[in-house]
């Protein structure tokens, strides 16, 4: 039963999703209401969404487990592991504090969430934590947790809501990730010099096509080749690349279809670690 029940669940869910795909989509203009298949499909998709969200949590738990173990074992990369865990939890704490600002005690909010500033039209600035807006004005709370008098919208010139989470994102995370990605250009430059060799007919073809595409892609390359690189590049991309991409897409789709069928029919069981 340990095998049969999971396979049965997979088969039933797979068939239901396939059935929903062929049911007409809801369309108010044509009077088409969501069918029962789509209601089931929606429910299954919700479950899948929850599972993906849980996978995020599992991912965090796994990162903590692996890195803690290596820290305990005094791995040579221990300082980096410590930085990784500290950064992850610091960002998590700051992010959660900002998300749940209204429900947290004032002492924690004061430490973790930067104060907001509302500049009035007369130049006067009110500091505090914005709690939300009503139809008539902005509600704020002071550092002691007391509600401030509502500030009418027509008296407000500017609302500034600084965010530590966004500061970390734009000042640390974004530049670091962009730097990592841009390093690829340097590795590509080095690899082309060392590894791209016209050793055979096929490799020569690949090399020449690659060089033509690179030249045709940029204005200076096209100018230096007397305007020939761009049309040749367009010809290669519109014919050979497009044809190859279509073949890959169709082949891949047929592969997915075959695998899907095997799963739905209970023939493919690798997801059960068999």
């Amino acid at each position, binding site marked *: 039963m340990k095998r049969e029940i999971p396979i049965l669940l997979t088969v039933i869910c797979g068939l239901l999703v396939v059935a929903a795909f062929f049911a007409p989509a809801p369309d108010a203009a044509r009077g088409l209401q969501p069918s029962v298949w789509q209601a089931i499909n929606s429910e299954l998709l919700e479950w899948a969404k929850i599972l993906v969200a849980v996978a995020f949590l599992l991912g965090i738990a796994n990162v903590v487990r692996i890195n803690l173990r290596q820290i305990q074992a005094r791995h040579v990369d221990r300082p980096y592991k410590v930085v990784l865990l500290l950064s992850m939890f610091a960002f998590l704490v700051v992010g959660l504090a900002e998300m749940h600002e209204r429900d947290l005690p004032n002492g924690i909010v004061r430490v973790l969430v930067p104060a907001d500033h509302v500049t009035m039209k007369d130049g006067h600035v009110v500091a505090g934590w914005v709690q939300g807006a009503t139809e008539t004005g902005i509600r704020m709370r002071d550092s002691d947790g007391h509600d401030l008098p509502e500030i009418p919208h027509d008296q407000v010139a500017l609302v500034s809501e600084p965010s530590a989470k966004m500061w970390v994102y734009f000042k640390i995370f974004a530049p670091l990730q*962009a730097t990592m990605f841009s390093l690829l250009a340097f590795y590509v430059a080095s690899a082309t010099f060392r590894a791209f060799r016209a050793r055979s007919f096929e490799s020569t073809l690949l090399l020449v096509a690659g060089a033509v595409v690179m030249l045709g892609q940029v204005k200076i390359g096209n100018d230096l080749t007397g305007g020939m690189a761009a049309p040749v590049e367009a010809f290669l991309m519109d014919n050979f690349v497009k044809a190859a991409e279509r073949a890959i897409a169709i082949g891949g789709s047929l592969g997915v279809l075959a695998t899907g069928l095997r799963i739905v029919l209970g023939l493919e069981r690798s997801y059960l670690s068999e």
Partner: protein
Amino acid sequence: MAAALAFDRRWIYLGLGLLITGLYAFGSPEELPPAAPVQEYYDAIEKLPEGSIVMLSADFDPASAAELYPMFYGTLHHLFRRNIRVVGVCTWPAAPPFSREAFRSIAPQYHKEYGKDWVELGFLVGDDVAMGIIGQSLRSAYPNDALSKAPYDSFPLLRDVGDSSRGIAMLITISAGFPGILEWIPQLCTRYDVPVLAGTTAVQTPSLYPYHPRPLLGYLGSATGATQYLQLVAPGTPALVPVREENQRRMVAQGWGHLYIVALIVLGNIIYFRSRRRAA
């Protein structure tokens, strides 16, 4: 040959670094002729009737922001300038800050009202499954918005979209990989007849070719596509002129970077063939 190829690779890095930073800092912006898919992207937005609802999906992260954020920024200007209503979504967890930054800075320039002219629904976990849910019912995908956490039906714009994605006139995705345009096409576009436009990284662009011109009406491929598009949009939008010029300067640096790499290929092969002749 081994000696010729074995020199410290950091010289190659230094050469490329100096070339790119020097040209970016001191190069003058150059106009690029727009490619056909870029013109089609621009024309597709121009043809949308005023008041149409477009879903703009930010499917990227900081790693690809240099290529993709100018596309997102230019597209949002273009949509608001044309009085198109915009529903913002994200399928990448690191995308919302970029999306929020763009909406917050651009919407006030066109006096657009939140909830009526634009809504930010934010990140939805689940990759292509999430796209399937969005396609089937935007309301069940997002019971609340991302900014005010207010219920779906409290926004006039979302009430106009209704329950199904048939209320969406067009999907525009600025996409860096998985999940992105290749998942949106089966989950939303072909299934619910929603036309799509895309902006993608250079690496991903060839994978779009099989889907163009239908259902993909047009696309912006890489920083080149972004620059060409900004050239088309900027004339009627003064706020975009500095962004366009910055992108044009980037393209000069990128152009010489390409030449540098082609020169390295040629040089490496000259050394290779000379050493082979000597060995023979």
